C-alpha cells in the first residue's frame, strides 16, 4: 500500500484538530486540518487519490451532515467518521443511515479513534479502487450502443454467443460482430480481460 491516503480533520474547534493531528503524527500519520467545510471541500476536489475524513457534526456554515450529502454525490468513496460534542441521537442515526463510516462522541478514547482511522484508511483504498472501476465502467458504457450494452451485460454474466443470441433473439453471428465491436471500443484484448476489469462494477448494479 504505497498509495498516499489523505486524512482530513474538519472541526471548528482548533484545539480539537491540533490535538488529533498531534495524536496521528505520533503514529506517523499526517492529517490535513480545516476549521470550516468549504476549504475542506475545495481541497478534496483537488485530490484524486484515496482519502478519509473526520467531520464535526455541528459547525458554523455547512454542518457535518450537509457536507456528507455533498460528498455522497461527488466522492462516495471517502469514508466519513463523525464527531459530536452533543448527545444528539437523531443526528447520529441520520448520519449512519446516510452511510457514515463511524460516529464518535467527544470525549472519546484516543485508542478507539486510532483504530477507527486505521479501519477507515483500509476501507478508503478498497472503496477508491472500486469507485474508479465503476467510473471507468460508466464511462465505457457511454461509448457503446444500446444493443452493445445488452450484449456486454450478458457477456459479463458468462454467456456464450449462442446463448446471448437466443436471449436477445438475434443470430450468434451478429452477436460475434457486437463482441468484436465491444472489445475494440473498450480497448481490451479478450473476454477474460473484459470480465476482470468490469466485474466489481457489475456486482454493485
Amino acid at each position, binding site marked *: 500500500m504505497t498509495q498516499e491516503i489523505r486524512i482530513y480533520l474538519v472541526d471548528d474547534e482548533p484545539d*480539537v484538530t491540533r490535538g488529533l493531528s*498531534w495524536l496521528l503524527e*505520533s503514529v506517523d500519520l499526517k492529517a490535513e486540518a480545516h476549521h470550516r467545510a468549504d476549504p475542506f471541500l475545495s481541497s478534496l476536489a483537488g485530490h484524486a487519490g484515496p482519502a478519509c475524513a473526520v467531520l464535526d457534526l455541528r459547525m458554523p456554515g455547512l*454542518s457535518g451532515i450537509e457536507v456528507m450529502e455533498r460528498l455522497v454525490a461527488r466522492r462516495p468513496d471517502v469514508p466519513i467518521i463523525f464527531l459530536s*460534542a*452533543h448527545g444528539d441521537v*437523531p443526528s447520529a442515526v441520520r448520519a449512519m443511515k446516510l452511510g457514515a463510516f463511524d460516529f464518535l462522541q*467527544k470525549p472519546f478514547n484516543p485508542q478507539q479513534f486510532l483504530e477507527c482511522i486505521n479501519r477507515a484508511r483500509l476501507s478508503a483504498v478498497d472503496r477508491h479502487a472500486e469507485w474508479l472501476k465503476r467510473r471507468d465502467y460508466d464511462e465505457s458504457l457511454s461509448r457503446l450502443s444500446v444493443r452493445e450494452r445488452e450484449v456486454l451485460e450478458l457477456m459479463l454474466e458468462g454467456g456464450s454467443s449462442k446463448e446471448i443470441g437466443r436471449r436477445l433473439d438475434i443470430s450468434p453471428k451478429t452477436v460475434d460482430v457486437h463482441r468484436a465491436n465491444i472489445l475494440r471500443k473498450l480497448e481490451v484484448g479478450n473476454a477474460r480481460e473484459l470480465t476482470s476489469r468490469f466485474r466489481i462494477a457489475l456486482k454493485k448494479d
Partner: protein
Amino acid sequence: MGLPVSPPPTDPSAQTDRLIYEQVFDNALVGICFMQHRRFLRVNARMEEMLGYQPGEMPGQSVRVVYARQEDFDEVGRVMESFPTTNRYVHERPLVAKDGSLLWCLIAGRMIEPHDPDSTSVWVVQDMSAKKQAEDQLARANQRLEQIVESRTLNLQKTNAALKLEVERRRESERAMIESREKYRVLIRNIPLGIVITDAAGEIVEINPAMQGFFASSDLATFTAMAREAECTVVGEDAVTTLRELIAACSPSVTRRVEHRTAKWEAADGSPRWFDVAGVRVPVRDLGCAIVFLDRTEQRRARAREHTQQQQLAHASRLSLMGQFASALAHELGQPLNACLSYAAGIEHRLGPELRKRPDAQEALSRIQLHLHQAGDVVKNVRAFVAKHRPEDEEIDLAALVHGTLDLLQLQLREAAVTVRLRIGEDLPRLRGTRVELQQVLVNLVVNAIEAMRGAGVARPQIEVSVARAARSRIRMSVIDNGPGVPEALSESVFQPYTTTKPGGLGMGLMMCRTIIESHGGSLQIEPRRKRGAAFRCVLPVEKGDPP
C-alpha cells in the same frame, strides 16, 4: 324603571325619567353603546372618548373598527348567535382606538330581545387600564352632570313656556320625550350594570334586572330584605358590612362627591363575587342617589388564571434551563477533555521506549489518562441523564405553540405596553420536537425583546412574531422588535455563554436558545444589517434530525 311615587303619565314625570336615563347614559363611567346588526346605533360620550372618536362619529360604523383582530370580531359574532340561550357575554379583550392604540377592555353585552336577530343589543365596555383615573373622571363627570342639569332645567322652563303657547309643538315634544324615556328605560333594564336608586331618605326604591340577577332577588322587596342581612367585605378596609350599609356608604350626601368601594360578596352557593360600587347623588326632587354595581368577578378570575399561567411558565423554564445548562456544560467540557486525551495518548506513542525506562513517569501518565477518562465519564453520565429526562418528542403545531406562549406572556407584554403583531402562514406542516424547549426559545426571544425595548425607552414598543414555510420542508420562525438592535460586531458573540448586555443577566439565554434549536436540527441567527430593531430568525426542519 319607575319613580318612587307613581305619578300619572304627564310631562313632568316623562321629563324626570328622561333626565335620569340620559344622565346615566351620558355620564356613565363606562362606555355604553347600542348596536344593531353589528353596527353602532348609539354610543355614549365615555365610549367615544375611550376609543378616541369625535362625538357622533361612531354611530353607523361597523363594530369591526374597534376589534384589534378579525378573529375577535368573528368570535364575538359567534357568541352573539348563541344569545337566544345565554343572553350574557362578559369577556376581556383588546379593543383598538381610532389612532390604532390598544386598550384592554372588559366587555359585557346582551340582546334586548334575545330571540330576535334584528334586536338591538346593549354593550358596556370598560377600559381597565384607565381604572386608576376613575376617581378623577367620576369627579369630572359629576361636575359636568351638574352643569348639564342646570342648563337643561333652564331649557325646560323655556320649553314649558313655549308649550303653553303652541299646543302642536307641545304634543310633538311630549311624544319625543316619551320616546326618549322608553329608550332609557330599555337601557336601564338591559344594561349589564347593577343600578340601585334610593330616595331622599336613603331607602331603596328601585333596582334594575341586572341588580336582581347579581343578588338572586326576584323583586325589590326580596332584595331590600336580603340587603339588610347579607354580609360583604369591603376590599382594602377589611371591614365586614351588610349590603345595605355598603349602599348607604356609597351614597354621597352632597352632589359633588362620588363614593366608591370594591366589595366582595359571597353568593348563596358559596362562590365569591367582586363588585366595584360607585354612587352619585341624583339632582332630582324626591330622589337620593344612583348607586352602580359593576361585576368584577370575571376580571378577578382572569387575574387568578394569569397568575397560575405565570407559575407554569416559571416551572417549565426551570426544568428546561436545568437540562440545557447540563448539556451545555457537557459540551463545553467535552472539547478540552478530548484534546487532553489526544495529547496524552500521543505522548505515550512518541515516548514509548523512553517511558519504559522511567516507570515513575509512565505511572504519572497512566494516572493522567485515568483521571481524564473519569472526567469524560462524568460528562457522558450528565449527557445520558439529560437525554433520559428529556420529554418525548411530539408532533408540534408551531402556530398553536406561538399563540399559547404569547398567552403565557400576556402579563409581561401588557405591563410593557408592547403591541404584538402575529404573522402566521397558512397550511404549516407540523414538526417533531420538544414542546417545552421550543416554547422556552420563544419565551426567551420575546422577553429579550421586551427588555431591550424597555432599556432603550422605546416609545411605542412592538414585537412581530412570524411563522412561515421555508424551502426544503423547513419552517421559519422570526421574532422582530423595534428596539435598539444588536451591533453587527456582537451578532455571533451574543450566542456565546456568559455574554450579556442586561444588568443581572446570566448570559445563558441565547446560548440555550441556539442549543435547543440546533438539537432540533435547525439554526438560530440574527438577521444581519437591519436599520433598526433586532430580528432573530430560527429555521427548523419538519423532521427532527434533518440537516439545517
